[in-house]
């Protein structure tokens, strides 16, 4: 058994703290990086008009949601899903992460571009439906082995609802076409 002096313990604590801070910084940088491009068109939204403040909120929160989703599916961690997702979208994303943890698979979503079109905004503003034509490079890995690597275009039907301080994705369903 090794006895460590208080000086050694303090040294280890400092090293771990620094590593933890660096890791946190890198995760934060990842979440805030510009790899996810989102464009939003609200011209066809109705019956309620989309205010410019709401538009900015949707852009910000949708981009953050996809950054978080990519992070969750790449690192097989649930934490990034807390906040940007709720309801059924959060449920199936959690299932995917749990299933990936079991199978040893992971997914990477790279170079994402999302063309969002608001197609329905409820009269009282409590739900918005959007169509997302998403283009990205998707990689599926079995351990370190890449079993899929391709550029894809996927159409998503999205339901977003306003939360206390952000818009959350409640429903995210891929469809062959709109």
């Amino acid at each position, binding site marked *: 058994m090794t006895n460590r002096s208080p000086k050694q313990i303090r040294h280890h604590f400092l090293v771990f703290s620094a590593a933890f801070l660096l890791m946190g910084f890198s995760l934060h940088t990842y979440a805030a990086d510009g790899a996810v491009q989102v464009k939003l068109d609200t011209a066809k939204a109705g*019956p309620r008009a989309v205010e410019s403040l709401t538009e900015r909120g949707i852009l910000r929160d949708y981009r953050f949601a996809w950054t978080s989703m990519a992070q969750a599916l790449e690192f097989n961690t649930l934490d990034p899903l807390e906040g940007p997702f709720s309801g*059924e979208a959060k*449920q*199936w*994303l959690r*299932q*995917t992460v749990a*299933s*990936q943890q*079991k*199978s*040893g*698979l992971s*997914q990477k979503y790279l170079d994402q571009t999302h063309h969002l079109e608001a*197609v*329905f905004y*409820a*009269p*009282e503003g*409590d*739900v918005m*439906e959007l*169509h997302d034509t998403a283009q990205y490079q998707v990689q*599926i890995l*079995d351990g370190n082995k890449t*079993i*899929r690597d391709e550029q894809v275009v*996927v159409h998503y*039907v999205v*339901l977003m609802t306003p939360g206390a301080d952000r818009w959350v994705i409640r*429903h*995210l*369903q*891929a*469809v*062959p076409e*709109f």
Partner: protein
Amino acid sequence: MCLAAWAEVCSAQDLRAPTSAVAGEEATISTTGSGKATFYLVGPGVSHRNDVALGEEIHLAAQDIRNAGNYVAILCSESCHRASFYVTAAKPVTLTFLVHPSRVPVAQGDAVSGVALPFDQYHNLVLTPLNVSFELTAKDASLWSKSVRTQNGAAWFRAASGKSAGPLQVAATADDLTARRAVQQVASDPCNLRITGQRTRTGILVQTQPVHDCAGNVVTDGTIVTFTATGPHGTGTVDAPIKQGIARAEMDAPGPVVISVASGVVMGNEIRVGAQ
């Protein structure tokens, strides 16, 4: 050489995904080739890896494809081949029905609105167009109804509130599915606000006649009525809540005054009360 060519043919593997699949229904993927391979299924809520025999069908269990969306099936032996397919929502079993507001003044145009979204038993949004009938009823009488076809999985309405205070039943029906919500209709702004007043030993007691809206509904208790007394010594104001349909207040004004009444933007009559 012949053996090498034979081996190449035998090891060539491919897979064919279903052309259409419905959430929660079993599906099969056919494979070609021979020998062993690893099969992957990746989609919303699923990420499986299995060993399979090439040339045999791969059965996808109902629970593996219960979430509507895009799935990719990958088959790997010497190399990997993939096929993607879409799973669509099953038939609707629930209607999510959002109605606003929970309390509404009577006789207000476009005051009640609702949104209906059909979902299947696995909570997938049903995007196939569907007729949704909206109906507003009060005291078993239909006030308004409209049939709306869902567009992109959503149907909505906007309607005026009824004329009588009390519960308003709002229903959305699609085939054999019905969702109901209740909205409390309350009296609108007061109408024909009238007051009476008389001197007492301590001041002037003013009170309204029973306060109704223009449709005859008793205005909700707690609604504030403002009495204003104007006389040679200045102006005094008292706010009083309506209790059991009547608002009353005692005002301190020894000289002659003119007392007026208002509630919100509605003005009532004026009365003159002489000096003490």
